[in-house]
């Protein structure tokens, strides 16, 4: 076994000790991970964004990049209290463009496509409404009524919202079931590393 595997193995065990409770070994691993991961992110941001995207093309004569450069430098203003209001400008660019992009993105794939698909589910191949499609329609309308805020959930709305919660619970249960599979696989992968690479069992 080489030194790399030994270190990786010890660090793996250090994190697992958290399962008993918080302790100095875990704390060591946690602080190490935090430091290394910020360092890694800095290096990647430097090489892939600062150099590849900004400084090299800028040096190559793409002067339009002065705009993002200026916005970036304004973010630095946060570090000096006197100038910190300047940092609101790049934040405004991020938040404004994010909001503007979100409106059509939410309406298109989120809402309109979902509506079309629901019609498709019900109509199916054209031979009358399909049973599963009607389940989808009822589920969708009932769950939407659960999200109706303007009136208290009483009477007809109450009933419909209640049916909506049942559909929600079916969804949460199903997602939980599927996701458990993934989570177990990750642990199995780590267990395999410990058992075969580190301890040399199961070749």
């Amino acid at each position, binding site marked *: 076994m080489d030194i790399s*595997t030994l270190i*990786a193995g010890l*660090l793996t065990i250090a*994190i*697992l000790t*958290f*399962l008993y409770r918080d302790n100095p070994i875990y704390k*060591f691993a946690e602080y*190490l*991970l935090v430091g290394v*991961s910020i*360092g*890694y992110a*800095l*290096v990647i*941001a*430097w*090489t892939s*964004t600062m150099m590849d*995207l900004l400084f090299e093309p800028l040096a190559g004569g793409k002067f339009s*990049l002065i705009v993002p*450069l200026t916005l*970036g430098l304004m973010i*630095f203003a*946060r*570090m000096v209290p006197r100038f910190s209001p*300047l940092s*609101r400008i*790049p*934040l405004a*660019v*991020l938040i*404004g*463009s994010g*909001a*503007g*992009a979100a*409106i*059509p*993105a939410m309406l298109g794939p989120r*809402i309109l496509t979902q509506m079309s698909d629901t019609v498709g589910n019900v109509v199916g191949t054209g031979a009358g409404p399909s049973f*599963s499609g009607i*389940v989808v329609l009822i*589920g*969708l309308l009932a*769950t*939407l009524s659960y999200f109706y805020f303007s009136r208290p959930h009483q009477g007809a709305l109450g009933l419909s919202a209640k049916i909506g919660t*049942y559909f*929600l*619970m*079916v*969804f949460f*249960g*199903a997602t*939980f*079931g599927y996701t458990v*599979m993934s*989570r177990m696989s*990750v642990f199995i*992968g780590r267990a395999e590393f410990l058992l075969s690479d580190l301890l040399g069992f199961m070749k």
Partner: protein
Amino acid sequence: MSRRLAQIICAIFGVVMFLLFFSPHPAARTIALTITTEYWQVIYAFALIVGAVSFLRVNVKNIQRGQDSGYRIISLIGLVAMPTVAIIWGIGANTPFMWIFENIQVPLQSTVFALLAFFVASASFRGFRARSLPAAILLISAVVILLSRSWVEGQFASGLIATADWIRSYPSMAARRAILIGIGLGSLTTSLRVIVGIERTWLGGGR
């Protein structure tokens, strides 16, 4: 003053990005791509430096006060080591940078992720109790799906898998769809409030 200016810039970028969505024209697409790739990425890269500096400051201050000094020094060593080895030896294959990444960062991260398997176990034991009808429905749905993905063979298995697939494709999907529509509406109104300037929490100015 800077708040007013920020508000105006926010509104302009909001309206422009909204309109650009509808245009396939090369000029429109260039602007949209420039904003999302160049502006967003560059601002984030600079912000990361600000974040790292604030992390550094807080830690140095706490080390001076003697709070968790040993641990904080480890963090700082990690933080400084990565850029240092990257500058000296580069970041390609078989460099110390890649070695630290592969043998320190990757095992640590994957193991934190792997903790989830255990937390799934404790949450299943504690949280899945059929206290009420909705809770019972949640439970049954999860059990059907889990069983269908476990080791069952034969006639029973194919029926179970078919049931699980039906649940996933119809009732469960209907609820997910409604959630997505709700989120879509919530995001839509929030974005609109941001653009027209009713929503100013982000400026720190209250409303």
